[in-house]
């Protein structure tokens, strides 16, 4: 074997091992944050943490493009008709986001949250305590006891600082509202 061949064997051998090591770790992060907020620190890299999941949705998931344009999930430029809780859809809105919460995935797109049920998605009220990066455009602002809240379709949110920036926590309807 030539010296070059030996070098290539070692190099590709090393790359192959790297690849195998990486693939074995698998998993994918999810969330509505738009990513990035917990990135950039070696000591605190744990906080940018993934959740393992099955990759089933990639076979029937929705594309992120529509007519050649990428749609931002949280604030689609075009207002959509309000979807009623309990509505079942077979296809999530373009550019949907997803996050892991209490042992299941929650999907968010065009001002609505969904959970998966068989081959469909059900429009579902987000659970109390869940922190989301964005709230629907049509949310109404309220001030209760000097604190700011937002309400959308019966769901109440309070602004919080989480993940190093503004977010919203799903809360119960505040007393006095």
């Amino acid at each position, binding site marked *: 074997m030539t010296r070059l061949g030996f070098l290539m064997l070692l190099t590709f051998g090393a790359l192959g091992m790297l690849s195998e090591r990486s693939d074995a*770790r698998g*998993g994918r*992060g999810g969330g509505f*944050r738009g990513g990035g907020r917990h*990135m950039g620190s070696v000591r605190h890299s744990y906080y*940018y943490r993934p959740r393992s999941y099955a990759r089933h949705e990639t076979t029937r998931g929705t*594309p992120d493009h529509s007519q050649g344009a990428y749609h931002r999930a949280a604030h689609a430029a075009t207002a959509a008709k309000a979807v009623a809780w309990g509505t079942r859809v077979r296809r999530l809105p373009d550019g949907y986001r997803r996050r892991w919460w209490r042992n299941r995935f929650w999907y968010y797109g065009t001002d609505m949250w969904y959970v998966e049920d068989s081959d469909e998605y059900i429009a579902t009220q987000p659970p109390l305590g869940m922190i989301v990066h964005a709230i629907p455009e049509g949310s109404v602002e309220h001030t209760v006891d000097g604190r700011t809240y937002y309400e959308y379709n019966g769901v109440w949110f309070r602004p919080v*600082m989480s*993940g190093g920036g*503004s977010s919203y926590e799903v809360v119960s309807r505040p007393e006095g509202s």
Partner: protein
Amino acid sequence: MRLAAPLLSAGMWLLVCACNAPAGPADDSKTGETKPPAADPPRIAPEARAALLRMSQTLQRAQGIRFFAKTQYDDVLPSGLRLLRTNTVRYLVSRPTGLRVEFEGHDDSRLLVYDGSTATLYDRDRKFYAVTSAPDTLDAALDMLAREADVVVPLSDLLYRDPGAVLLEKVTAASRVGTDTIDGMEAEHFVFSQAGLDWQIWIAKGERAVPLRLVLTYLTVDGHPQFTATLSDWNLLAETKVTDFKVVIPPEARQADFAVDQEGA
């Protein structure tokens, strides 16, 4: 062959690692007992450790530090589509009790200030802010912010009193890649591995060993997203004022609480 040598070096330690790795629990034939395999010793090239030490010494000598970072990261959507996001971040440090970090990003503009007793995060776009009491040293404050306020400051490793020690604390392997030029400055390039994370750093050659680039690759997140920061405008003799570490909150801004996202990613 300049490039082949580092690759060979990386290949060698991976090969050695694989050959030395025990296939299973060690069997002690004399006693019949099964012993757990011994942990592999860390494989950290001395020159990589030395480079981080030089960088640490450079930063430790400075009392006031100002620098600028252009950062970018992969935002991997559930479908697998990868978006590239970019931000700029301006840092001002006054050891040991002052920090000012100004973020300008694709979706918000934020300011984080620590003054030795409190930390304030202000979202300039949405006009929300949160304040929390904080420990009296920057090192402890950075840890507290991550743990209790869910605030991970990008490049926070470089803000600690001993950045080299912080960066090395979980490293299992490291090697030198070679030399590079970043913004016209010669730099040495190193790669480090630890559980769940590979990271690379480019450190300026010479006595002023400041970091010029840092790249983190998250191995446990699907799509292996990367965070890249290119650092510039280093001022290790920065003058600071008390007012640099105070935030003027406009009257229309509203206060929010810090909240830790227990299950977020």
